[in-house]
């Protein structure tokens, strides 16, 4: 497989440039503060009237609108990974609270309320954004992947395969998510997954992740369909997925599922471990997750440089795989391998070559990891242009 990335667009807390982030970004949010979360990684993005009260919809619309349209007559697909829908404070107060009755909710009254007062229920359908935006690029194929934090990476891989097979001529592929809302915060607070301070993947004192939001979409085309004016930002040359088949919230402690996804990606790309020059880790900053990933990387790829962007952009959840892949495109031609924002002291227990600071180096092939609740894993390999 050799699929050209002919355009890419990203929005996240680090901005909208296709370059690896270098700084930490955390700002207070009243709803987050109420739940004891000191800061979140918020992206700058205007609200889109087509997606009222849906940040992730607005984020997806913003990144798609920044991409060039498909060539005339092309068969187009839109493949998006998405996450849990936002629930606004108003919905919490108006839709849920009034219907609390002894022992639970009056669901019928709640449903009647939702149906008559607001268009809320339909906006919570995950595929709504894909359908609405698909129409704007003339997509005849739309897919909405929901694989938790591996969703966007799986969407990019499915899109690349569809282009490779010839199902579509042009694929717009990526992901979008925002859990910067009360229910989003709440979800991770009760799980104990958020850092009480900030994100610092691979750090000796890492204690959870910084919650973020973002979107990124790549435009994918076959090599033989490229025109003289097309610029290639990178090539998707392979990918692999796996399931841990272990536990819906905890990764396999030795990263078996992650290893399997990386091995499949290498085989798909017809590469050897030595061909990978840099690994953009899932690297959330949770104690267990980082350790399992480092074990997996070392077992499959050996002593390869690894870093994570999540200390700067936060964990963009379902969008992470696309956001981080888009940022990786800036590595090609930079002569530098990125460091890990937020990292102060590398955990000596980790068996991988973690980059704290950027360092000189040329990346010919980058492997990007995404792992999700449910045990779904996806590894993508991109090659430098040329």
């Amino acid at each position, binding site marked *: 497989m050799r699929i050209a990335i002919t355009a890419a667009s990203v929005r996240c807390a680090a901005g909208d440039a296709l370059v690896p982030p270098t700084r930490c970004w955390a700002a207070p949010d009243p709803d987050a503060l109420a739940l004891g979360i000191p800061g979140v990684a918020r992206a700058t993005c205007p609200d889109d009237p087509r997606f009222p009260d849906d940040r992730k919809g607005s984020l997806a619309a913003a990144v798609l609108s920044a991409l060039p349209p498909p060539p005339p007559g092309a068969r187009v697909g839109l493949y998006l990974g998405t996450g849990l829908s936002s629930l606004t404070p108003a919905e919490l107060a108006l839709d849920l609270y009034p219907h609390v009755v002894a022992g639970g909710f009056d669901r019928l009254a709640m449903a009647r309320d939702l149906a008559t007062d607001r268009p809320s229920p339909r906006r919570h359908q995950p595929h709504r954004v894909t359908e609405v935006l698909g129409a704007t690029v003339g997509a005849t194929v739309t897919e909405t992947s929901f694989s938790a934090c591996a969703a966007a990476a799986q969407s990019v891989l499915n899109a690349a395969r569809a282009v490779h097979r010839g199902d579509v001529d042009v694929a717009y592929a990526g992901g979008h998510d925002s859990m910067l809302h009360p229910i989003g915060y709440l979800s991770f607070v009760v799980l104990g997954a958020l850092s009480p301070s900030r994100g610092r993947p691979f750090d000796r004192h890492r204690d959870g992740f910084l919650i973020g939001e973002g979107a990124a979409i790549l435009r994918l085309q076959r090599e033989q369909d490229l025109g003289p004016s097309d610029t290639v930002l990178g090539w998707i040359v392979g990918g692999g997925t*796996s399931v841990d088949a272990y536990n819906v919230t905890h990764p396999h402690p030795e990263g078996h599922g992650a290893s399997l996804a990386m091995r*499949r990606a290498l085989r798909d790309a017809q590469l050897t471990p030595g061909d990978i020059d840099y690994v953009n880790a899932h690297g959330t900053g949770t104690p267990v997750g980082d350790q399992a990933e480092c074990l997996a990387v070392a077992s499959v790829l050996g002593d390869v440089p690894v870093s994570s962007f999540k200390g700067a952009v936060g964990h963009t959840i379902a969008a992470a795989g696309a956001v981080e892949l888009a940022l990786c495109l800036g590595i090609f031609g930079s002569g530098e391998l990125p460091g890990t924002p937020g990292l102060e002291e590398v955990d000596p227990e980790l068996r991988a070559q973690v980059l704290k600071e950027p360092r000189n180096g040329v990346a010919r092939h980058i492997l990007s990891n995404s792992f*999700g609740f449910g045990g779904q894993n996806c590894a993508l390999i991109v090659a430098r242009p040329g």
Partner: protein
Amino acid sequence: MQRHVKIIGASVFCPAGIGIFGLGPPEPGGVPGFDPIACGVPRKHLKTMTRAVQLGVAGVNAALASASGWEAIGPERRGLFVGASPQAGDAEDLAAALKACGGDPGKFAREGVPLIPPLWLVKGLSNNVLGYASAQHDLRGDNGNWCDGPLGGAIALAQAVHAIAEGRVDLAIAGGADSLVGAEAVVDGPCAEGAAFVVLAAGERGDSVVTAGIPTDDGLEEGFGQLGSAAVPVAWVRAWLKDRKVDVGGVRANWYS
């Protein structure tokens, strides 16, 4: 690489019934007599599964139980492809916390949050059928989970066929599950629940036709009302069980088990 694909097992849970009893006329409503424990859903996980997830895991169990020889295929060559709907963590799990706070966000954080079950988010994950069923049957291969309304299950079926045909897996379980009973006021019409899965394996020449294309919702059986992500898989499996032939919305093949 293109390989032939065959169906070696299937399951259906719908308002008409379970398995061959589910071939009657389509009608809205629940799956009669559905008992997740009897269908092999682990008791210890029931609390973190919505009704749709219970149906989905039961559907995978039943499909695999109907297939023979699949255990000989290694776990890393077994894929799972699922169409699902947002599960929206059970609202009941928030009721105590909301009741305790009287609508005050600060009080909610201090006094309400400790009353919420820690696995509330987990219960709401839309890929829970995939997560639980893969762990139960050691399915570690290629996979996917799609939330595309009535097309979610259809996409799962098509992607599973591609995965076998392209040699990424040797066994693929594919289908969808949903439970919309009780959502009539929201979706404006009769609703149903159900699940259906097929077990696909690489076949020999003459076994089957390699399929192509993404199925559409042309094959939905309107009598069920809203069946969500289970709609197309239920239609597929009912058609297959009836005459071992499938011709549903864009994917055309004669299947032989």
